[in-house]
């Protein structure tokens, strides 16, 4: 049975507790600016790869979900009104119709029927 006295005399193997960080003084650090102060520090991969914010462009129609283009209702040069069907995008076994949310003229259609698209791919551009 468990015996706490015994466990006290255990000689557990050291795991990662001996790594030392000598050489920090010679390391060349990057800078991070917070509240007007520049801090010397390491930057992480995740931080460096973070998504840079792009403001919403009303001229661009993007795929809101990854999927397959099933049908295209419009074409380059066509005029569309708010509520007109633009494309059918099938995703996760559901057919989603993307409607025009602005009046205008189509400058370019970047996909064709049968295309597989990732999320936020540019589908249609207004003039």
């Amino acid at each position, binding site marked *: 049975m468990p015996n706490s006295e015994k466990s*006290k005399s*255990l000689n*557990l*193997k050291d*795991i990662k507790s001996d790594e030392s960080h000598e050489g920090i003084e010679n390391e060349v650090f990057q800078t991070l600016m917070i*509240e007007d102060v520049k801090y010397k*520090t*390491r930057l992480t991969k995740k*931080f460096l790869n973070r998504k840079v914010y792009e403001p919403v462009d009303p001229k661009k129609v993007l795929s809101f979900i990854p999927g397959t283009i099933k049908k295209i209702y419009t074409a380059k040069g066509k005029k569309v009104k708010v509520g007109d069907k633009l494309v059918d995008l099938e995703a996760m076994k559901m057919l989603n119709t993307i409607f025009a949310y602005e009046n205008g003229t189509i400058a370019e259609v970047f996909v064709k029927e049968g295309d597989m698209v990732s999320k936020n791919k540019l589908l249609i551009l207004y003039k």
Partner: protein
Amino acid sequence: MSLSSKSSDLKRRMQEALRGGGDKAIQKQKATGKLTARERIIALLDAKSFHEYDLFVEHAGRDFEMSDKYLPGDGVITGTGTINNYPVCIFAQDFTVAGGSLGYMHAKKITKIMDHAMKLKIPLIGINDSGGARIQEGVNSLAGYGEIFYRNTQASGVIPQISVILGPCAGGAVYSPALTDFVFVVDKISKMFITGPEVIKTVLGEEISMEELGGARVQAEITGNVHFFAESEIECFEQIKKLCSFIPWNNLKKADPFPKKPPRVRQYSLEKVFPTNPRQPYDVKDVIRGICDDSDFLEVMDLFAQNIVIGFARMNGYTVGFVANQPLVLAGVLDVDSSDKAARFIRYCDAFSIPLVTLVDLPGYLPGVDQEHAGVIRHGAKVLYAYSEATVPKITVITRKAYGGGYIAMCSSHLRADFVFAWPTAEIAVMGPEGAANIIFRKEITEAENPDEMRKLKIKEYKEKFANPFVAAAYGYVDAVISPEETRDMVIHALAISADKKVDVPMKKHGIPPF
């Protein structure tokens, strides 16, 4: 039948069951660099301590010609044993038997050993190596997972639950580990995901390998789903053994004390590891090692959100949980990931009566659209919630910067730290001197003949007045300003006198933490 022939019949049956999936399947398992389920249990537990149950359980599949098949132990091994005399209930999925797939009886074996662990109030270790649900058993497989998840949740905070991923763990199966306290993975062997590369390819057209999608390294560095990363199964087992030495068997017990040992000061003297220049980064793990027993610190989630450091160590022989900002990475800021990491660890320590020692040195929260849109408000709030809720002894040491919201969040006296100590190098202020001077003296600076000179002058003025621990000490927000070399003694004393700490909490079913 005579007793001896009965015995030899038993022996024959056992031998058949112990063969697992047979030589061919075992060879295949070994070819991928993996141990078999039984070898894993033997390697992890104390010699001869493993006692197996339910060896003769048979599967319950009736459809798709399953009834003719014999699956030894139904693809999972369950039992009890000890790890350095620390009692555990354990199960290990056997990939050599039907790919370790989870059917009705397989799940029954797991839930039975889970129920044992809860009844006996001892830790549960689950070794996962499974292709997923046994499709032939249909809805019974789903029921099995659901029964496991329910028990994981009920056991959470009562007994330690450890998940070890030593093979694939995909689809619904990932949620049992996710509900447990600590998840261990091994490079190249562990793979976890909800939807695999094939589904992603057919549905979305995105191509990615299993390793890049949910391999051990990805889970340890990027997702934060796992807590310990090892290069080999044997290293992984050593990590589990080490962790078990720090934590109690259940929430009513305390972790076993060890003989007290001073830090190895030759290597980790605070003088050596803590820079005098306030802008110089340093490795806060070395500061922890300079304070704790034998400089022995078991870091948890060492690859994820490295701007905060969490882990177990001992002070005067007793287990404590350390939470420390890491100036070496992202200047030690709080962000979405580091908040999640710290908050969960704080709640773990609180649930299992492990006192918390917090080392503070942070410039604040990480600015950025990505952070705000990822909900840094909600995630940052978890730290406030976890510290405020925790009733274990809470000791805080402010070593350098403690600015603004970061000061409050890092277990300040306002969140009911029992003792807050500050080093003379501490700067406790509403924000950094540069930012504060730019706001407070904006008029003087812009109207000055030489604005840059004026700015520098005002920053210096602000620094002298506020960038120190004495303003906070004057209000009693800091209990003592101490020199770094006193830290260990002060913390040990504070922990010793708070050992019987009791806090009255308002009657409630449970709070609603900002998950």
